Structure formats: C-alpha cells, structure tokens
C-alpha cells in the first residue's frame, strides 16, 4: 500500500456516511432542527445505499447493527420492503395453487 489516502481523496459516500449523522450532539445557539438533517440523511441514504439489491441477496448485516438499526425510519423502510416481499410471495402461492387445482380438474375430467 502506498500510504493512506489524504482527506482530499476521501470519496463523498465514505465521508457523508461518517460525518452527516455522527459526532457528539450538543445543542448550539443556532437551532438547526436535527430532524432536518436526518431527513436529508435519509434522502442521501436512498442514493448511498443500494439496500434493496443487497437484501435480495440476503445481505442485511447493517440491520443488526444497533447504531444503524436504532433509526426508526430505517425500520419503516424495512417494513415496507418486507410487505412487498410478502405480497410477492403470496401472489406466487396463489398462482401455484390455481395451477395445481387446474391440473387436478383436468385429471378428473380425463378419467
């Protein structure tokens, strides 16, 4: 390795995931609603994290990390994904049952 990269070369994703919602929180004299920053964080996370694709592969380590999973909004997003996935599974099961019923009926007619 030819020496660690300096701060200038830090890529934006690496930088933002460390800076944006980390660091000691002290109340300042100018009140920035932290919620505003968190909303921004979430918007960026949509861009930063290809969460859906990773989840599809069964990779979900970050959900077990307390520092990441403690965010309620993240959980909400996850719940939505779960619903979508469950919905997809149910659709497949209905289709499978219909196909099965169809084949049973065909067999009944044949005999």
């Amino acid at each position, binding site marked *: 390795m030819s020496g660690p990269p300096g701060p200038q070369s830090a890529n934006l994703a690496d930088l933002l995931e460390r800076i944006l919602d980390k*660091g000691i*929180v002290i109340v300042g004299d*100018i009140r920035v609603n932290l919620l505003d920053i968190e909303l921004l964080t979430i918007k960026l996370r949509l861009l930063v994290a290809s969460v859906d694709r990773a989840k599809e592969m069964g990779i979900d380590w970050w959900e077990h990390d307390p520092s990441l999973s403690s965010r309620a909004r993240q959980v909400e997003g996850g719940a939505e994904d779960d619903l979508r996935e469950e919905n997809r599974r149910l659709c497949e099961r209905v289709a499978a049952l219909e196909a099965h019923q*169809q084949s049973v009926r065909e067999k009944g007619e044949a005999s």
Partner: protein
Amino acid sequence: MTGTAVYLYGVARGLDPATLGGTSGVSGAPVRSVVVGGLTALVSTVGTDDYGEAALRANLEDLAWLEEAARAHHKVVDRAARAAPTAPVRIATLYRDDARVAEILVEENDRFGEVLDSIAGRLEWGVKVYASPDAPAGPPTDPPSPSPVVAPAGTGGAGTAYLRRRQDERRHREDAGRRVAARAAGIHAELAEHAVAARHHPPQDPRLSGRAGTQILNAAYLLDDAREAGFLAVTRATADRLADVEVEVTGPWPPYSFIDANAASSATAAGGKAP
C-alpha cells in the same frame, strides 16, 4: 454579512495550537482554538448569511453546499485527530461567540472527557469488500439444498413448471447470497480481532462507490495505533488470498463511527431542558 456565529468542529485534548496554524475551515474561514483547561475547541467564525437558521436549513438540502461543508469540517477534524485525541462534533453546531464555546467546554467537560478517553491513541479505518460482478461468490460445488416441492414431480402443466423454475432460480440466488454473506462475515471477524471496536455501515450504491462489484462488506474499525500495521497486513493478505473479491481500505479517519450514540442522545435530553 448580516452577522456572525462560531462554528464548532470538534474538541481535542492536549492539542499543540501550532497544529492548526494556517488551516482554513468552512466558508474558507481560518480555524482558531478556544482553550479551557486541557480541552481545545476547534472553531471558525462564519457569517449568518450562510449559517443562520433559515440559511442553514436550505443549505443542508443542497448537496454541493453540503459536500463543501462536509469536506471542510473533515479537513479540520482530521488534522487535529492525527495530532491529538479529537472528538468530532455533529456537523453544523453553532454558537453565538467564543465565550459560549468556552461555557460549553466547562458544562460538557465530563462527557468530552469520556469520549476522548475511549478514542485516545486510536483511529478509525474503513474496509470495503466487493465481490466481482460476474464470478459466483463462493464455490459453485455446494450441494443443492433439499427442495421442499409441494406438488409431486410430473404433475401440473407449464404454469407449475414455470413456477418451479422461478423458485429454483430464487433459491439459487439466495444460496449465492448466503455464501457471500458468510464470506463477508468471515473477513469481518478476522479484521475485528485486531480492533478495539467495529461498526457496520450500509452498503454503498455503485454510482457512489464507483465500483461495479457488489459491496459485500462496508465496515469501520477502531484501532489502537500499535495494531495498525497488523491490521493492514491482514487486509492485504485477504486481498491476496481471495481472488474473486476486491478489498478497499480507507483511513486513517478521525473516529467518527465510534462516537457513542448513547452519549449523543443523553446530550440531546440534557440540552432540551426547557419545557
């Protein structure tokens, strides 16, 4: 410029004031220090036209502005962290003047002390691991998992066959995913042995990581200075041993990822003492 405010980057302990000489921070403003006891607050004077309440709210939504501010914030914290234990403060923490910053150093003295104790002599390293886009991430010779097929084979029409094929495809993908996850967990466990603490970050989108492969690990490790060489040797050995993954190491970083979330939330509660 309608007014000014004091931007706080972080708090260091035992920092040589010469370290920050000539450093410029957010808005290109020079960085100063406010010293109380052994603690040094790193600050800059900024204009409220950029850092006032309303301006800040708008600016934080502007990615270009945010990037510039984040890079400047990082540059200051980074320079201090390489010289002395430095606790980063949340971006966009602003005070009326230096006297208020000095008050905060006194009020929050214990908390800063605790955080600084936990990171003294330690820096953060980032490790990202990518599985190559095409290669299967693991031996393809795994025995196929027993398939719990409901309908007996041979029955059913084209629809059932289609569904079964889809199910097989999905199972295949899930198996591949499990192998990838197991591999990532293995690499992580090996690296974590060298670290005081470790944190996972969510995977990054290829548009931002600039890599085609799937990011299978994105983690931060807090290392004692003495363990750095050993840790980096492990990352190199991992990269050499595993042909179908790429290992990217970043750092050293100020220990951003290891600022205790609980310390932060208790601060919020303490700060919000107004009814």
